[in-house]
């Protein structure tokens, strides 16, 4: 059964996916043609990953029809997708780091003839201009090489649909060009390629067609030539004007200073970051997930040590050891994974407050109860002092985390602080944070929501592949410049005519 170029390889009709009450996909329909590269773009949380997980059988759709080469199919497990010839290159390489390149190539390959498969691997590698050593351990490869290996494996599996999830994150320019050449070659041989991406430049250079997802819906669909401004608008919504709720204030003494910081942690690491944040600043970190914001926050919070460079904090000079004792806890970090990293499942609200505060050695069941009740009231937490952290909703977990910030905090670091909060809670949270920050504090927060950053921050930093691509006061930049930076283009690029 061969699908001719131009015919539909995949047809999606009214795909819905609900997680509990949340509707991640609200009726997505699209067609992916054989012999084309189809771009799928959208903000974080637009539903791209959910859609791809459905196509690869990792999760099942709630309703809707999937057609493959004209035939209706049911994708229940990755096995089903694999049989049909749908393969995916995951953002985090889903491979076996400790096994050799050849072993990785052979897992679940047809037949087990190391000699022949080695030959085939080398031939394929040659054909696409890759250079992979079959005997090297995969963990010694760069992310780009691991991708190349996975790509060759999928080609060898005769995949007819190739899905690539943000394939250029963390790989070099040169590797990107090799990858794109390979993808074009595959397209010309009739494969359907789905490229999930944030980066407009690569979408423009590679895709024949682009679909924009926003809040679980298809909001735009374009063929080449692409109208970038309209794409940007579809991705990020209408460009809001003057909704700033924070006034730039006189900045004071520096509170956090990073000098030439490098780190290999996270997906993108951190490359040559030098910044200084001063009292009274509210800094918003923007960028695609995993572009370095998370690493930046953890290094600033003293939870992660940089590979090189210096980090200075107000309370303990150098951030090379965790804060000791409660009095010097002037730097606090609120992670995005609230229950996994920030709170202790099983401990109650009261117990969390006791851990964070100056609790006496002996604790009666009533110790700290009044305090907890007061906190619950002031922070509008829906729960009682004895409610365990894992029994709270996401929004209430965030309120609890916030309530644990000590009065003396000077540097407050937050990762996706308003995730799961409604508008009112978010606005309450910002008031709360400003009170805590006082006159001599600073806030640094990462957020996928640009409007929030533009409205709440006095300064924005845009991360791209582990670098800060844009660093500007929010009142002297606009959403367009920022979205361009997120998609990998510096303000200088923007002035150049589009290639």
């Amino acid at each position, binding site marked *: 059964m061969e699908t001719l170029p131009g015919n539909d390889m995949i047809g999606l009709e009214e795909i819905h996916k609900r997680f509990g009450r949340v509707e991640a996909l609200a009726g997505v329909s699209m067609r992916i043609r054989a012999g084309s590269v189809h771009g799928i773009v959208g903000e974080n949380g637009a539903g791209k990953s959910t859609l791809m997980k459905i196509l*690869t059988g*990792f*999760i099942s759709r709630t309703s809707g029809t999937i057609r493959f080469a004209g035939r209706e199919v049911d994708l229940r*497990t*990755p*096995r089903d997708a*694999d*049989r049909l010839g749908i393969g*995916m290159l*995951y953002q985090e390489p*889903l*491979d*076996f*780091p*400790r*096994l050799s390149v050849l*072993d990785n190539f*052979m*897992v*679940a390959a047809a037949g*087990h003839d*190391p000699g022949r498969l080695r030959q085939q691997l080398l031939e394929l590698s040659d054909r696409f201009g890759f250079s992979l050593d079959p005997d090297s351990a995969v963990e010694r490869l760069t992310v780009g090489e691991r991708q190349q290996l996975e790509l060759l494996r999928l080609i060898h599996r005769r995949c007819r649909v190739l899905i690539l999830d943000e394939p250029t994150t963390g790989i070099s320019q040169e590797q990107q060009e090799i990858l794109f050449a390979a993808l074009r070659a595959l397209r010309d041989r009739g494969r359907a390629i789905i490229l999930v991406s944030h980066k407009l430049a690569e979408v423009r250079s590679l895709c024949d067609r682009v679909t924009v997802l926003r809040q679980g819906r298809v909001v735009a669909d374009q063929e080449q030539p692409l109208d970038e401004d309209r794409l940007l608008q579809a991705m990020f919504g209408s460009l809001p004007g003057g909704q700033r709720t924070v006034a730039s204030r006189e900045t004071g003494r520096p509170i956090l200073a990073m000098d030439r910081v490098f780190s290999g942690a996270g997906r993108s690491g951190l490359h040559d970051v030098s910044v200084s944040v001063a009292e009274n600043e509210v800094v918003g970190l923007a960028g695609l997930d995993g572009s370095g914001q998370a690493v930046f926050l953890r290094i600033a919070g003293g939870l992660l040590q940089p590979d090189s460079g210096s980090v200075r904090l107000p309370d303990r000079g150098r951030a090379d050891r965790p804060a000791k004792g409660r009095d010097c806890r002037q730097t606090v970090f609120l992670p995005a994974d609230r229950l996994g990293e920030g709170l202790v499942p099983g401990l109650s609200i009261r117990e969390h407050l006791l851990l964070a505060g100056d609790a006496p050695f002996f604790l009666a069941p009533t110790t700290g109860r009044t305090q907890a009740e007061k906190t619950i009231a002031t922070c509008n937490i829906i729960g009682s002092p004895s409610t365990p952290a894992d029994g709270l909703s996401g929004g209430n977990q965030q309120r609890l985390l916030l309530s644990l910030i000590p009065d003396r905090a000077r540097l407050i670091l937050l990762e996706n602080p308003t995730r799961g909060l409604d508008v009112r809670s978010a606005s309450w949270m910002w008031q709360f944070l400003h009170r805590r920050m006082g006159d001599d504090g600073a806030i640094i927060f990462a957020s996928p929501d640009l409007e929030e950053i533009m409205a709440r921050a006095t300064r924005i930093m845009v991360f791209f592949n582990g670098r800060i691509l844009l660093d500007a006061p929010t009142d002297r930049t606009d959403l367009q410049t920022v979205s361009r930076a997120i998609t990998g283009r510096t303000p200088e690029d923007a002035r150049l005519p589009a290639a």
Partner: protein
Amino acid sequence: MDVSPADLLAGVTATAAPLLLASLGETVTEKAGVINLSLDGTILLGAMTGFAVAATSGSLAAGFLAAAAAGTAVAAVLSLIGTWLGQSQVAVGFTLTLLCRDLAYFLGTPHARQPGPQLLASPVPLLSDLPLLGPALFNQSLPVYLSFAAIPATWYFIYRTRPGLILRAVGENPAACWARGIRPRLVQTAATLAGGALVGLAGAGYSLALKPGWGRPQGCEGIGWIALALVIFGGWHPVRVALGAYLFGFLQISTILLQDLFPSLPTQVFQVAPFPIMIFTLILIHAGRNARGRKQRLLLRLFRGRPPAALGRTYRQA
């Protein structure tokens, strides 16, 4: 007492044989990411079952088969509660250790100190006459030959066959296997059962050959823990695990020989000594390997090995 090198070698290979089977079985299990902590009890249960069945039926083969079946049954319980129901493998394994030990003593009471069949050496014609190597390698009982064969066989299976590759892949990253259409929990179950069978066989290796008979104590108590330690400190590599088993065999034999040199020390000390010495040799190697900021010396590099990345973690399918 004068001991010829040939006798020494023969003693070491014979002593290490059941231990080898058990630790290679555990290697297979752990390569798939499952820890079977129940070895010490399973070996005893295998020893008892093997002896009881052989004594009742008069067939040594039936004894060995029954022992393997007992080991598989214990592994099946671990698989059910650990792999499929998501309980801590350590908790289940440890409980099974004690349960199997007591079950072995309890069920074995009627056979305690009873005469029973015993596997004798079956010399390989011609080869057994070789000097030095002849008695060591070719004048042994069947389990010893089996243990010789098991080393290259396990190595070949793990590193050179398709199921072996899948086994390693599941132990490294079950989620990636799932994405490739492999069913990780089935693979883990198979590896647990196969490993358990080898451990059961090891038990029969004691009660039907190396330390014939059944009693309390049988004489193989503690061996399971040594086997577990060997797998870890042998870096999950069958050949290095086998080397460790021979080292332990050598320790056991040499402490017997050393008794004559130190008549002032009580015999009992020599029986117990190999266990702490072995574990601490292994721990020191391991600690030296893991200590922060220390350069790896050649000797340490030889023992380098990392656990399968998913070892001991229950894989939860989406």
